[in-house]
């Protein structure tokens, strides 16, 4: 057992920057991202398309096509091992064994011409060195664990014979087959119906508990975040703009973008009130071909100061907030605004 008083981070990312080569120059997708993930922590990363949330996750697994992608700086240490300089073989071993990943569209992640049993046992034989019989037994167990009915016979079925929710369960079964210490889920429930989404979230919660996994859950749905996160990290234009314990982020947001996201949601408690306008965030995310000189959110931020336009703010402890609640902002949101409808 590790010493609970001085736990070591499972994942340490420092100053990670990723850019993509395009016809119009470089797109700066991730810009100086640093954070620690502790063992068994659930970190939710929130952001919209172009925020760098998926690209940074893919760079952890070294799954980005390089080129056009290029990791220009930084360090990613998983369990003490540096991943950015790791060999191909070491990365092969790590994917599945150390880190499992679930993507948004399970149909494109599964091989349509192989039975799902074949696809699960492949992982087990490769990483756990199981023989065919043991792998088959374990595959049925895993399918049963992710609540695929009649697992013993369904193991012989092909991906198209399952529903979307079941396919995502199968992806989870594959991702956890080798007891990884970290599960990365990138918009894993976005394409699913709400009830199926609730089931998948419940399943991941249970598995996390059983297997003592850390989870990085990437989503744009703040409702999902509220339900599963220990820590929330908000990303915008390739950088972290705010990070902190889940309650702090929802109840005491300090970055104007976080506040804007929370305020743009319809107020569900206000069922009987007249239909009023949602508090929208005007404008749109910046073009990342040219990094703005200051805070990338400044042009859309009603609270932006002069300094926001000229100098990028760094991520630091928010004043008067819980320890570990970090914000990148030159303004003090407490004096300027508050969350709509929050107590």
């Amino acid at each position, binding site marked *: 057992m590790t010493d609970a008083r001085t736990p070591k981070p499972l994942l340490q990312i420092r100053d990670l920057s990723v850019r993509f080569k395009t016809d119009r120059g470089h797109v700066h997708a991730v810009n100086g991202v640093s954070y620690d993930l502790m063992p068994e922590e659930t970190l939710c990363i929130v952001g*919209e*398309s172009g925020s760098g949330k998926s690209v940074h996750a893919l760079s952890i697994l070294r799954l980005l096509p390089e080129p056009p992608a290029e990791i220009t700086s930084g360090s990613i240490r998983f369990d003490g091992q540096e991943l950015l300089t790791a060999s191909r073989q070491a990365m092969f071993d790590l994917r599945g064994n150390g880190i499992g990943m679930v993507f948004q569209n399970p149909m494109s992640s599964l091989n349509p011409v192989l039975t799902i049993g074949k696809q699960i046992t492949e992982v087990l034989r490769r990483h756990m060195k199981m023989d065919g019989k043991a792998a088959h037994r374990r595959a049925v167990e895993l399918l049963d664990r992710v609540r695929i009915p009649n697992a013993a016979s369904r193991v012989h079925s092909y991906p198209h014979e399952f529903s*979307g929710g079941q396919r995502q369960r199968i992806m989870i079964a594959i991702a956890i087959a080798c007891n990884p210490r970290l599960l990365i889920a990138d918009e894993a429930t976005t394409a699913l*119906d*709400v*009830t*199926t*989404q*609730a*089931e998948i*979230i*419940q399943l991941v919660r249970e598995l996390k508990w059983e297997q003592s996994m850390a989870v990085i859950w990437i989503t*744009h*749905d*703040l*409702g*999902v*975040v*509220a*339900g599963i*996160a220990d820590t929330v990290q908000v990303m915008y234009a390739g950088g972290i703009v705010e990070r902190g314990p*889940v*309650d702090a982020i*929802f109840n005491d947001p300090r970055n104007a973008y976080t506040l*804007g*996201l*929370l305020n*743009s*949601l*319809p*107020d*569900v408690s206000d*069922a*009987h009130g007249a*239909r009023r*306008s*949602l*508090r*929208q*965030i*005007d404008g*749109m*995310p910046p073009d990342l071909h040219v990094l703005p000189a200051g805070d990338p959110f400044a042009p859309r931020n009603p609270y932006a100061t002069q300094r926001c336009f000229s100098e990028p703010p760094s991520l630091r402890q928010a004043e008067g907030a819980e320890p570990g609640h970090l914000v990148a902002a030159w303004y003090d949101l407490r004096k300027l605004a508050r969350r709509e409808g929050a107590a």
Partner: protein
Amino acid sequence: MPQTPPLLQVQNLTKRYESAPRGAPPAVDGVSFHLNSGETLGLVGESGSGKSTIGRAVCMLNPPDSGSIRFEGQEIANASRSDLRAVRQRMQIVFQDPFSALNPRMRVGELVAEPLLIHGRYRNNAERKEVVAEQFRMVGLDPDVMDRYPHQFSGGQCQRICIARALILGPSMIVADEPIAALDVSIQAQIVNLLADLQDKTKVSYIFISHDLRMVQHICHRVAVLFGGRIVELAGVAELYSNPFHPYTQRLLSAVPIPDPARERARQSSITAFTSRNDGDLIEVASGHFVRQ
């Protein structure tokens, strides 16, 4: 019964796809509802519940197998192509993916003007251009961008262009099929606000198809909950969300994640499977609140 006849009255709509496996129930199975002028009716349900099929059927993009669709007093379920052509000036549809809904080789100004050309309005070029420019302003776009192509716009802007195109003929009804599902969170509120503003200005009615139950609660006046091609519950929005009767509605609402960590921790969602097919009738349990038994 309402004093004035509703804008749209759908009776016993049924649609079965030829590709469906033998013995499977129809995609839409005897659905009846009405839509009043200036009203937004939400259609919610999971994938396969038939909500998009209904949306396409009332526009006669996918004509139903049987049933009646009365729109502005006219039966359109068996109308001729030329009659439909006239009707379609009064009803339009906005789709989920704004990029695939716009021809990439046409300038956005032409795309918005196209309905005017097809229906032979404003033969005078200058006049037509002015109408299109006004339409751009209505949806919050600068008319200066009319000469650009769709790929030069973001998803939210393309959806604005689709809305401009749908509205330019002055329709009385728009079917919006998951209009915000493909957009970023910070843009979704912009489009929902735009739809609400346009309704205030033009009194257009919406059929708002969505799986986002929070947004449906926000924008709709009445909501129909679909399961297995049938309406299992239909009520005013406040009534439905505060007093859901049908077990499926309860299950659906309990699965909606709430953006509040304290409430998320406290709540127990009932995620038991729901499979019964509900062959009973729709019963009115309160004024305007119908539940299938």
